[in-house]
């Protein structure tokens, strides 16, 4: 009893996944084939689910689902071959009528089934597509979707196209990638062991901005500090050694850029600003650091 309801649940789930097979997706086909293999004890139910879906799904999904059927039959074989064989001529002829533009693919597929399905089924299939036996060349062309590989958990999907694309694209990009790699190698070498160190990690905003791989993206804390220092200072004025407001003594430092001694964190109040603080025009005061 429990087994039965469990199977029911599985078939329902399988039907849900079948609906996702709307294009020729190798991973989905692989996955559904594996699931079928694991539940070979209920092969007739799975076959019925696939056949039902084939007759009810939109035309665009029919071919991918037929490739799934092909994949299961070729990779798992029995008991699926027998389960499919019964209704295959009828299912196939429906698709044949519904998809006139797919006739070449369907014929190719049909050619790969020689020896897989029983002779009676094959003959019926050929009749359904209106082709006498003689017209069908014993083709050695591989199936459009999948090549059979006996008894392996996962089917060897036809990945040649993906690999070809990958190789083509990598060849086009190779010069660029090689340049990047050489530049990096040289940078590492030029910098020498002594000067190389890990950068601090960046904060969220810098990370968001710096999506190019630029080592300088990490902020340089030293520079920031020095800029502040030069900005917030005034040249030394011997007549005013202390802050005009607080009376605090100014810190003196040597500034390389202006080549002069300067008061650190100092500001000269001029005009309205001097009036605002109630001091004489030109008084030096100490600024508080932010």
């Amino acid at each position, binding site marked *: 009893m429990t087994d039965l309801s469990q199977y029911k649940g599985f078939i329902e789930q399988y039907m849900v996944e079948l609906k996702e097979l709307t294009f020729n997706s190798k991973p989905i086909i692989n996955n559904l084939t594996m699931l079928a293999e694991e539940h070979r004890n209920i092969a007739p139910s799975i076959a019925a689910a696939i056949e039902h879906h084939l007759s009810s799904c939109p035309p665009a999904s029919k071919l991918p689902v037929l490739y799934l059927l092909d994949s299961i039959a070729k990779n798992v074989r029995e008991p699926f071959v027998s389960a499919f064989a019964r209704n295959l001529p009828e299912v196939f002829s429906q698709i044949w009528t519904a998809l006139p533009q797919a006739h070449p693919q369907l014929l190719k597929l049909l050619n790969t089934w020689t020896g897989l399905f029983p002779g009676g089924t094959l003959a019926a299939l050929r009749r359904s597509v209106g082709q006498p036996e003689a017209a069908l060349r014993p083709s050695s062309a591989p199936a459009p979707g999948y090549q059979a590989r006996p008894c392996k958990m996962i089917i060897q999907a036809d990945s040649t196209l993906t690999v070809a694309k990958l190789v083509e694209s990598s060849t086009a990009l190779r010069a660029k990638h090689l340049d990047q790699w050489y530049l990096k190698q040289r940078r590492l070498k030029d910098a020498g062991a002594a000067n190389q160190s890990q950068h601090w990690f960046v904060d969220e905003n810098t*990370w968001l901005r710096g999506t190019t791989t630029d080592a300088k993206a990490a902020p340089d804390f030293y520079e920031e500090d020095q800029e502040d220092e030069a900005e917030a200072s005034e040249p030394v004025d011997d007549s005013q050694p202390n802050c005009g407001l607080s009376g605090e003594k100014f810190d003196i430092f040597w500034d390389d850029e202006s080549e002069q001694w300067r008061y650190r964190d100092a500001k000269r109040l001029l005009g309205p600003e001097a009036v605002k603080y109630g001091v004489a025009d030109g008084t030096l005061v100490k600024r508080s650091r932010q």
Partner: protein
Amino acid sequence: MATSTSRTFQLPATEELRLEVRQGHTILIKLLDGTAEIFGTELYLGTPIELHGQKTAVYTWHGCKLELLASGSDLNEALESVYPAGETPMQEYVNVHSLLEQRRATAKEAGPVYSARSEGPRTLLVGPTDVGKSSLCKILCNYAVRMQWSPTMIDLDIGQGAITAPGSIGATPIEAPLDIEEGPPLEVPLIYYYGHVTPSVNPDLYRHLVECLAALLKRRHSMNLDAANSGLVINTMGWVTDLGLDLLYHTIKALQVDVILVLGDDKLYNTLHQHCRQSRNVTVFRLPKSGGVVVRDPTLRKTSRTNRVREYFYGPRNRLRPHSQTVSLRELSIYRIGGGPQAPSSALPIGMKAFSEPLRFLYVTDVDPVRQTVTYLAPCLGPVPGKYLLLGSLKVMMQ
């Protein structure tokens, strides 16, 4: 055994050469003919690559000729093992890549203005430890880069820390093939510190960090269409039961994962499959683990963890120079994340916001209670940009 300084291997198409270089040894590998790749990173003809004390595999789609060279005196001494293997899951992996490519193309078709449909595939790799998750993660990132995408690699494996030091989670944009010698690019990683090597110490913090990361990725994707189209490749930790599973569910939701790849665990596949049945747009796939995966015992995992910490400061090839500094304790505020196993969870959300900012790692080498000073190893010269330190529970001994 006789000493030798070089060996050549002729690999037929779709086979791989599995190599184990002994710890502390280095060998060079050179492609003489054909094409070959290491976890998706192409080898360049005639350009030798260094391999240091690591286990790796060189795969070829179309056949190749490889040369192994000793950097020291003897090749046999440096190599623990080397053998060609024909049974690899690369066919399945490239099929996954094909599916992700389709999704990326669809995302790009959504147009030049960012919308929800511009989001490329958000792939989650799950499975127990030692099934080849990190390798697959590298392969998928590399293949995407080789198709001119720039995916974001996310590392949630706090135990090993593929992007940076253990105890943290991180994200890094991948814009060039991963460097075989140097590892993931460290120029622009975003790191959140968790402070422990297992999430059970403080699962709330772990969840919080994943959410922070998700929010940030969302911001980035709205600013960077290419990154949005390219999608994410997320690596996870090997803990897949009880709390580990809960955290996986949380990650799936927080990072809006839509492709889940389960490696080598049928039970986990079924569990996740059931879990994701309700949500229409999550697809779960099962993949075989590679026969080349070496099971790491706890000692080896610990060694590899220590090595990761070491690499953070010194670089994979000992090229980096960290700096040791001593500061007074009064200048620093040290906090402990989560306060240990007994920390009341109610205490967490309050201070948490302030600490979620990305940060830096220091390796504390000495604490002098009398002089009230801390001596630490900082990754670079200059003062520490901040006075707040977070204490983690990670302890390693670097020589």
